[in-house]
């Protein structure tokens, strides 16, 4: 924990499209607040719940994970986390979840949305929708705050994938997984039909899935364009873009957003417009960013280093030829194909492939990376686990300087400016003289 007072800064985004996310986010929060005021149900959801399905049910949603990032960025997360810790929730636990727990506590204490709640706050939910992808906290955290405060209907969509090393081409294995995952998606649909009193419109869902695939293809093309030197779009911009990508998937607006981003980035590549005038080093960022201090990316840029690519929230290569006439099966099939891509890349440690050394190696090569920064976020095991393994694999296969920064995604109490900046400066010295330096 830091003794000194840290200086937390918001990032200055490089692309105009990423800058527009602020407004999109504000509008999106206002929309669910309005829905709640008008007496319509709002669901609290966890990333992994398909927004395409929510959209078809015309259900407004708030996402405690995203709210964690918003509270962190506005330096409010500590306040909520302290409330959660006062209730007995350990500081080890996911800071997004702690933030949501503290928010619930305060909401109940004052009998409504706290007046200083960032983005106008999250309206009290009528239901919870979570899932089991990626980590334990997304199911356990929702269970905890539901049992402790909310007491509303909840659905946990349990999506399973095989561990690395399984034969993803084995039809028996695929049938085993898809049967279960399809059941779980139908489970969500039945739950929503019950909660909203409306029936699923399959044609609308097919359209939403098509939109989602279109947005993902555009996003992936942007990832590809970012291989250009100088880097046309840095990681801090990409981290903003998760808002339309994760929460608005399935909408026409998300497709338009990524088309705009695509056009802007392509134009930058064609005109060799870089993030900074003189790009000395290209960094690969591994892990969730510190949302309370996104200015760290601008700090890197001030030293000539651009975070040219990142592993978190990567959209894998687009999936084609999926039968969209059966949209539920299509969602499961898309998930399976993405998992297969991750397996092919070599996600040695997990069923989710979050830390595929293969992905890191690929990025280091394809994005002309000079140094890798691993952001080890203390309160999230899922996204941190595998970094030490990956660093070892890098040492063996592709020596490139590596830096471990230890802090958190939403808990600034783990941050120390002098420690972090000192590490970065020593790291860039190595990058400058080391094996990874570009000619």
């Amino acid at each position, binding site marked *: 924990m830091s003794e000194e007072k840290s200086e937390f800064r918001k990032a200055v985004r490089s692309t105009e499209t990423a800058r527009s996310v602020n407004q999109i986010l504000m509008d999106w929060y206002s929309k669910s607040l309005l829905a709640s005021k008008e007496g319509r149900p709002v669901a609290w959801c966890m990333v992994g719940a398909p927004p395409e399905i929510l959209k078809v049910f015309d259900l407004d949603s708030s996402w405690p994970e995203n709210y964690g990032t918003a509270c962190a960025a506005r330096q409010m997360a500590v306040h909520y986390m302290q409330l959660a810790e006062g*209730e*007995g929730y350990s500081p080890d636990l996911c800071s997004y979840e702690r933030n949501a727990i503290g928010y619930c506590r305060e909401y109940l204490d004052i009998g409504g949305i706290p007046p200083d709640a960032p983005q106008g706050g999250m309206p009290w939910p009528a239901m919870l929708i979570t899932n089991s992808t990626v980590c334990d906290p997304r199911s*356990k955290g929702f269970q905890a705050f*539901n*049992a402790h405060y909310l007491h509303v209907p909840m659905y946990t969509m349990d999506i399973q994938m095989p561990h690395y090393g399984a034969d993803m081409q084995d039809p028996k294995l695929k049938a085993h997984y898809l049967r*279960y995952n399809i*059941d779980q998606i139908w489970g969500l649909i039945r739950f929503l039909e019950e909660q909203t009193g409306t029936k699923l419109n399959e044609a609308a869902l097919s359209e939403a899935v098509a939109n989602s695939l279109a947005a993902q293809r555009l996003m992936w093309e942007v990832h590809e364009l970012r291989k250009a030197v100088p880097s046309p779009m840095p990681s801090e911009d990409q981290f903003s873009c998760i808002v339309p990508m994760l929460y608005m998937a399935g909408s026409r607006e998300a497709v338009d957003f990524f088309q705009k981003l695509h056009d802007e980035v392509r134009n930058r590549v064609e005109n060799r417009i870089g993030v900074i005038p003189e790009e000395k080093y290209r960094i690969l960022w591994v892990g969730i960013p510190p949302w309370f201090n996104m200015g760290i990316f601008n700090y890197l840029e001030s030293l000539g280093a651009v975070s040219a690519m990142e592993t978190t929230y990567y959209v894998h290569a687009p999936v084609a030829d999926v039968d969209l006439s059966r949209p539920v099966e299509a969602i499961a099939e898309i998930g399976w194909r993405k998992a297969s891509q991750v397996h092919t890349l070599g996600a040695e440690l997990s069923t989710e492939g979050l830390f595929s050394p293969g992905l890191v190696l690929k990025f280091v090569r394809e994005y002309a990376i000079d140094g890798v920064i691993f952001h080890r976020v203390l309160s999230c095991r899922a996204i941190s686990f595998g970094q030490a393994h990956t660093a070892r694999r890098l040492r063996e296969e592709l020596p490139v300087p590596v830096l471990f920064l230890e802090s958190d995604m939403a808990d600034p109490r783990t941050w120390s400016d002098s420690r972090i900046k000192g590490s970065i400066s020593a790291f860039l010295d190595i990058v400058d003289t080391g094996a990874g330096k570009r000619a």
Partner: protein
Amino acid sequence: MALQGEEKSAQPAALCDNRSERARELAAQGKKIIGYLCGFVPPELITAAGMVPYRITGVMGEPLVEALDYFEPNACNYVLNCFQQAIKGRYDFLDGIVIPHACDTVQRLYGLWKFWKPPAYAHFLNVPTTVSPASIRFFREELEMLKESLESFGGVEITDQRLKEALSLHNENRRLVAELYGMRKEHPPALTGGEMTRLLVAGAGIPADEFHSLLKEMLRSIGGNAGSVDEKKARVLLYGCVMDDAGLVDLIEAGGGSVVLDDTCIGTRSFGTAGDAGDDPMEALCRMYFADFLCPKVVRSCDEERFEYLVQMAREYRVKGVIGYFMAWCDPHKFDQPVLRNYLEKAGLPFLALEDDYTLSSSGAMQNRVQAFLEMLQQKD
């Protein structure tokens, strides 16, 4: 192996302290030893394949050094410790491993172990997050796949008959364990919590038939004797995840408590359910190792009544309070902790939460807290 009638607790204690010795002996004789972790893996399947199930444990208190080269420090230190034993070659006697998708950390352990210390056989058992007819079917299919892979590794067919025999042997052990637990309902209990823990840890490292003899011997040596535990000791229930070392139980018992019951992975969670094999032994395994297996990783419901079973157990054993042992960086248990505390306290059961990093290194401070808690319990009525 000779299991002569000695002092009540001497054999299990010796086996517990030297717990891999028997497995190493058997490995030297050509038996295949399969290590497994967590309560989702049915050792019955390993027994039925003619191999020896061996529950992987750590070495409590050993400083973490080697493991940190591979694993993040913000991980459950128990799992890190198990992995460190593997890296140091202390599990080289294992022919294979079966690791389930328990928590995030255990799931990663499988990949790390397989990558850096590849055994001849490694199998990952996936575990659903919720209980439903579909998830029970999914788990059953996972068990079928585990069965097939054990068959092909062991070169044997696990027929229904073999599986039923293995089930009945393990069930018989469960019944004997339950009998021993039952002897702690009395006051004073017939055996201490420390003795019970050592017995269970010892049993998890030897073949089921040898555990059977050990249990019989234990029961015989207790006979009709009344317990030797001091009457005034406060009866407590110990709640937690892994408890593969008796250190904490000893600490509580030395401080004036008597651990008469537990809700831990190596204790009642694994021995609390017995499956009548009936016509369908796989169905019985599914129930015992998934549908009825109360691991917090599986989200069953969001109402706090999900902890009612603990209150019932506590009443049955006339427990005065609950001590919870929580591993640092453990998501599944720590998310449950505040709701669990509220529920127990509402039921009149005081709750003391201890946090540790699998070293008991703060045992001085822990002892003070335990003692204060026990004194409070003693004054309660």
